[in-house]
């Protein structure tokens, strides 16, 4: 299960002897984050240019300086502080090093100064092209600085089994099969009842039950495997 080829989870070995898994963020969600940041930058530029407009000729100079700071500095300043920008934060993304640690200042600068290459010839075409061809979804800037963008995972609540009684199955299941049963019980709250029944019906012969009852029985079995209510 750990090394399944179904998803693009990365397992990064730590010096502590375990590996931690990370989920690189794909093109769609990063585009959303980019557009969100773009809107913020646009709004900032509009507000600043309205403010500086009243300062006459010197104001025009200040507008240009603020344009420069916003177009080049926005990402560097935000990512250097927390590893995210407002847009990335909104979509729960974070910039980290290849080894899973927070990215350093020099890496942040490199990855953001290389945006012109990714933006070539327009609308980040080359960057998207590069991202599509590697499993870490790295754009050119990420390659050159040794960073990647990952989903920030929030620890999800453990499924509470205590409502149901345990059921001791009359047949033997291997460890992997037991894990599948437990995973089913944990995922059950996300699934609709007909879907639960549909999945449980695969085992209807072994469980000697059908539809909702089969699903309930499976959850009770999960409770037994996990060691509750014995």
């Amino acid at each position, binding site marked *: *299960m*750990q090394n399944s080829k179904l998803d693009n989870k990365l397992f990064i070995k*730590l010096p*502590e*002897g*375990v590996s*931690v*898994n*990370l989920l690189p963020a794909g093109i769609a969600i990063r585009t959303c984050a980019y557009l969100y940041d773009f809107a913020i930058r646009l709004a900032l530029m509009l507000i600043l240019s309205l403010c500086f407009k009243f*300062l*006459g*000729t*010197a104001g025009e*100079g*200040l*507008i*240009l*300086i603020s344009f*420069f700071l916003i*177009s*080049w500095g926005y990402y560097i300043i935000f990512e*250097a*502080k927390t590893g995210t920008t407002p847009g990335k934060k909104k979509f729960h993304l974070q910039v980290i090093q290849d080894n*899973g*640690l*927070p990215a*350093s*200042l*020099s890496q*942040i*600068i*490199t990855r953001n*100064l*290389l945006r*012109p*290459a990714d933006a*070539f010839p327009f609308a980040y075409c*080359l960057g998207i092209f590069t991202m599509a061809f590697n499993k870490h979804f790295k754009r050119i*800037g990420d*390659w*050159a*600085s*040794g960073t990647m963008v990952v989903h920030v*995972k*929030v*620890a*999800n609540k*453990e*499924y509470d089994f205590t409502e149901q009684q345990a059921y001791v199955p009359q047949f033997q299941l291997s*460890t*992997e099969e*037991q*894990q599948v049963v*437990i*995973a089913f019980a*944990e995922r059950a709250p996300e699934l609709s009842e007909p879907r639960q029944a549909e999945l449980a019906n695969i085992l209807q012969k072994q469980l000697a039950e059908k539809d909702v009852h089969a699903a309930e029985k499976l959850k009770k079995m999960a409770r037994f495997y*996990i*060691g*509750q209510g*014995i």
Partner: protein
Amino acid sequence: MKQSQFVKLNQSRWQNFEDLCSSDNKQALPANFGQLYRQICNDLAIARSRHYSPSLIDKLNVFVATGQKHLYQGEKASMTSLYSLFKQNFMASLYLNRYYLWIALLAFYGLALVVYLWVLISPDAVYHFLDVQSLNQIEQMYDPAGKVQQDERGADSNVLMFGVYIYNNIGIAFQMFGGGALFGFGALLPLLFNSFYFGAVSAHIVHLGYQETFFSFVITHGSFELTAIAVAGAAGCKIGFNLLNPGQYSRGFAVKQAGKAVLPLIVGAFIMLMLAAVIEAFWSPLDIPNIFKYVVGTLCWLYVIRIFYRGTRYGH
């Protein structure tokens, strides 16, 4: 051990660890944080090897991921750390990238000189490089009897020009650095374009006989500005060249190494261009006898040449 037993046994320790790592915790981490973190790592390894449920493994995995961020967090980014990156590494990286720098400087100044001589010998050649409209503008700017030179330039238009120089010049330098990743073309083409432009314009001005106003204006900031453009070009070219020719490394690793090696150069170019923008906006247009500008300009050139000689020869 069944999963629920394992959870019950360690629950309070995990809760404690989660509280320490949460963003609400403003206090310093305890001295035994490393030990706590390694225990969590151990728990994750046990949970995986005992095939506990995916959600428990996920939860411990999040603990480990946030824990390592707290334990191994790097330097806090600030302007001072950016400056120290420049101060500590700029000279050394001049030495490490000396071949790229020599080639970029030679290409920039060499080709500018070639174009300069060419336009000087046959003045019509300037139209190969610039169109009539921008030439007219430049002529008006440096005409000693013209409006631009005769009018008093106020403090507010100095600020405007400062903004223009920051936005344009530093923007170009960053574009060259970034564009370098396109196999070096994004750096090389702007480098050559700027070199031709500079050579052609200077020769054209000399041909018109406006050299006094032109050279007294550009000599001081030119030292930093022109050299910084060449430095940004060299930095971009190195990334592009390493992408083309990674040697014994993988392409990804070679580009990563190049990015690390040239970063102090681009920070150096940024600082030089900032300096040049200040000089160009507030010193160069001053209405003082030209001899002062020539003296200060020559000192600036000598300083830049000294830095680059020492950097590319000795690295300190």
